[in-house]
C-alpha cells in the first residue's frame, strides 16, 4: 500500500488532466486580494451563497415528501411536521434559511453600495446583483405559496388583484399567474415549477456569472477618501495596489468567510431548532373566511403601504412602483460610475440608506400591528371595562350595549381594548358635542361608514348618551360655543 498522501496527489493529477478544474480552483483560491479587502465587512456575499446552498439542499429534501397539489399540499405539510421524523426541523431550516438569506442579501447590497463597489468597472456585477436580489425575493414569495395554507391562498388572491389592475393585459396576466380561472390546483403547480426549477435555475446561473465577474475584476478595494474612481486609470491603480498589497484570497480572506458561514449556519440551525417551522396555518379552504391573511415578514412593508395609499393613487402606484424601485437600482452604476467611493464623502448615499431603512422599518412595524384592520371579534370578545359603565344611568348603559352590539368596538377602542382603525373613544365627549356625534354616527365620513340605516332613533339616542359620558380623566365636555348665544327652540341643544 502506497502512502495515502501520494495516492491523493495522483488522483488529483488524474482528475486535473481530464477536467482542468483542480488547477482552476487553485487559481481562484490564490487570486490576489488587496490586503485591505480581506475584511469582516466582505463576508456577506459568500454568506448569501452558502445560504443558497443550504436552501437547495433542504429544498430537495422537502420536495421528496411535499405534494405540490392543491388537494394534498396542506396535508403533506402536516405530515412532514408531525409524522416524518425531524420533518418539522427540515421545514424550519428551509423557512429560517429563507429569512436569513433575504437579510444577508440586503446587508450585502447595503455594504456594496456604501463601499462604492458598484462603480467602474463593476457596473455589471452590480446589475446582476440587483437581479439576484429580485430572484431571491421571488423565491420568498413563491415559497410562501408552497406553504399552502389560508395565508398562501389569500396571498395569491392579493397578487392576482394587483396583477388585474394592469391595463389591457390584466386579464390574461391574472390567468397566467393562476394557471386558470381560479386559485386552484394549476396555481400551486405553476408556483411549484417556478419555485423549484425556473427561479433556482436562474439564481444559480446568475450567481455563477456574479462570481466570475468578481474573480475577473478583483474584489473591491477598501475605499479611502480621496481615492477617486476614474474610467481612465482605475484598472491601472487597482492593479498597482493589488501588486503592492495583494494577498492570496485563501487563506487570508477566506478564513473569515468560512467562520462567518459556520456562524450563520449555526444561527439558522438554532432558530430552526428553538423556534420551529413556519405554519402551515389553516387549510386553504376558500369557504373558511374567518381569517386575517398576512404576508411573510419581508413583504409586510408592502402590505402596510397598501393600507395607506389613497384609493385613487393605488393603481398608478402599483403600476409605477416596481419601475420606480428597480430602475434607480439598475441605473445607479451608470449614473454614478465614477468618483468617490468612501461613505464619508458620499452624504447622499448615507441619507438614501438611512431613509430607505427607516421607511422599510416603520412600514414593517406597522405591518406587524395592522392598526388599520378592524379587530373583527372585539365586539363579542372584549368586554367594556367596569369603570366605563360605573355610575351610568340606565339610558347610558343601554347606550353601552348599543356601542358593543353594533360592533363599534371593532374599530374604536375603549380602555385600550378594541380596534385602532378609528380613534380611541375614552375621551370622545371632550372632543365632540352630542350633535356632532349624532351626525358622525348617522352620516359617517372621515373614513367612518354611515350607520343611519343600522341604528334606530332610540339606539342613536342611547348611544350618544353613553358616548357623552366618555370624557377621559373627568375633563370638561365639548360645548357648542354658539349654543349660549342663540338658543334653538328655547333649549340649549348641547349644554346639558
Amino acid at each position, binding site marked *: 500500500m502506497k502512502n495515502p498522501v501520494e495516492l491523493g496527489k495522483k488522483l488529483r493529477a488524474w482528475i486535473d488532466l481530464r477536467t482542468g478544474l483542480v488547477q482552476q480552483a487553485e487559481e481562484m483560491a490564490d487570486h490576489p486580494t488587496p490586503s485591505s479587502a480581506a475584511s469582516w465587512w466582505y463576508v456577506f456575499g459568500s454568506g448569501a451563497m452558502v445560504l443558497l446552498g443550504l436552501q437547495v439542499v433542504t429544498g430537495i429534501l422537502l420536495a421528496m415528501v411535499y405534494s405540490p397539489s392543491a388537494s394534498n399540499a396542506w396535508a403533506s405539510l402536516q405530515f412532514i411536521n408531525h409524522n416524518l421524523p425531524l420533518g418539522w426541523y427540515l421545514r424550519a431550516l428551509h423557512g429560517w434559511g429563507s429569512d436569513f438569506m433575504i437579510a444577508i442579501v440586503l446587508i450585502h447590497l447595503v455594504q456594496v453600495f456604501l463601499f462604492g463597489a458598484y462603480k467602474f468597472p463593476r457596473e455589471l456585477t452590480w446589475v446582476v446583483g440587483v437581479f439576484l436580489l429580485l430572484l431571491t425575493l421571488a423565491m420568498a414569495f413563491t415559497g410562501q405559496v408552497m406553504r399552502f395554507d389560508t395565508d398562501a391562498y389569500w396571498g395569491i388572491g392579493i397578487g392576482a388583484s394587483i396583477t388585474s389592475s394592469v391595463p389591457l393585459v390584466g386579464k390574461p396576466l391574472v390567468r397566467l399567474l393562476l394557471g386558470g380561472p381560479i386559485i386552484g390546483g394549476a396555481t400551486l403547480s405553476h408556483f411549484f415549477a417556478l419555485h423549484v426549477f425556473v427561479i433556482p435555475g436562474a439564481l444559480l446561473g446568475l450567481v455563477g456569472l456574479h462570481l466570475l465577474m468578481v474573480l475577473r475584476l478583483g474584489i473591491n478595494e477598501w475605499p479611502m477618501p480621496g481615492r477617486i474612481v476614474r474610467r481612465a486609470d482605475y484598472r491601472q491603480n487597482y492593479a498597482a495596489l493589488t501588486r503592492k498589497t495583494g494577498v492570496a484570497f485563501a487563506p487570508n480572506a477566506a478564513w473569515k468567510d468560512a467562520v462567518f458561514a459556520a456562524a450563520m449556519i449555526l444561527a439558522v440551525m438554532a432558530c430552526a431548532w428553538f423556534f420551529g417551522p413556519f405554519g402551515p396555518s389553516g387549510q386553504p379552504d376558500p369557504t373558511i373566511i374567518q381569517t*386575517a391573511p398576512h404576508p411573510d415578514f419581508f413583504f409586510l412593508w408592502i402590505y402596510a403601504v397598501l393600507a395607506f395609499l389613497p384609493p385613487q393613487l393605488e393603481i398608478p402606484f402599483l403600476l409605477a412602483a416596481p419601475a420606480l424601485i428597480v430602475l434607480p437600482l439598475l441605473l445607479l452604476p451608470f449614473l454614478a460610475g465614477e468618483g468617490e467611493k468612501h461613505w464619508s464623502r458620499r452624504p447622499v448615499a448615507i441619507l438614501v440608506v438611512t431613509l430607505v431603512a427607516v421607511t422599510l422599518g416603520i412600514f414593517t412595524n406597522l405591518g406587524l400591528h395592522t392598526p388599520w384592520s378592524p379587530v373583527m371579534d372585539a365586539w363579542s370578545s372584549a368586554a367594556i371595562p367596569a369603570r366605563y359603565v360605573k355610575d351610568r344611568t340606565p339610558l347610558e348603559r343601554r347606550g353601552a350595549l348599543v356601542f358593543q352590539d353594533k360592533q363599534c368596538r371593532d374599530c374604536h377602542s375603549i380602555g385600550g381594548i378594541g380596534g385602532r382603525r378609528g380613534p380611541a373613544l375614552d375621551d370622545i365627549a371632550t372632543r365632540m358635542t352630542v350633535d356632532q356625534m349624532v351626525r358622525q354616527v348617522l352620516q359617517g365620513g372621515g373614513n367612518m361608514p354611515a350607520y343611519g340605516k343600522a341604528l334606530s332613533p332610540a339606539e342613536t339616542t342611547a348611544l350618544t348618551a353613553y358616548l357623552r359620558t366618555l370624557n377621559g380623566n373627568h375633563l370638561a365636555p365639548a360645548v357648542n360655543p354658539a349654543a349660549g348665544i342663540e338658543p334653538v327652540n328655547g333649549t340649549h341643544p348641547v349644554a346639558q
Partner: protein
Amino acid sequence: MSDPKHTHHEIAAEATDPRWQATPAEVAAAAPAATSRRSFLFKLAVGLNGLVGAVFAVPILGYLIGPATKKDADFNSWVKLGSLDEFPVGKTHFAEYVNPVVSPSDGETAKIACWVRRIDANSFQVFAVNCAHLGCPVRWFEQSRLFLCPCHGGAYYEDGSRASGPPMRGLFEYQHRVHNGALEILAGQLPTFSNEACNRKPQKPNAPENNPLRVLADDDAAGRRDA
C-alpha cells in the same frame, strides 16, 4: 498541484507516431476554401435550427398561454346556490358553490364562497367574498349592516356599495337569476378588476335589469350576456 504540461496548448505540435501524421485529404479539407464553404453550411444549419425552433415554440407557447387566451364564456356558467327558501327575506346569507371549471388537483380550493342578500321575495344581490381592494375575504356583520375586510379595513354597506377604507369601488357582484325555484349565479372565475363576469357596479336593487323574473324570460340570452 498545477503542472502546465497537462494543458494541451503547451504540448508540441508534431505527432511523435508516424501513423498519426495527417493525410493529404485531411489537410486539404482544412484549406480556407473548404472552410468558407463550411461556414456557409454552418450558417445555413443555424438558420434551419432557428426555423425549427420557431415551429417548435408555437405549440409550446400555445400550451403556456392557453388559459390566458380563453374567453369568459369558456369559464363562466350558471351555478346553483340553493333553493329560494334557503335565503330568508331581509337577510344576508353566506353561500358556497363548487366552481364550474375544476381540475383534478383542485381539492378544497374548488369551493368558492359568496354573500347572498335577499332584499325581498324577488330581488337578490350576490356579492363576491373577495374585497374589491385586494381580494381578501370580507365578512358580513349583521348588527352594523356592514361588510368588513380583515386585511386593510375596507368597509361596504349592505347593498355592496363602498362605505370606507382603501377600496375604490363597491363589492364585486355576480349576475344572478331564479331558475326552477333556485337561485343561480353566473360564476367561474376569481373576481378581479379585469374580470367582466364579476366586475359590475353594484346594482340598484329596484332596477328593472335586476328583476329575476325578467331575466328568466330569456335564459340563454342572459347566460351569454356578460360572457
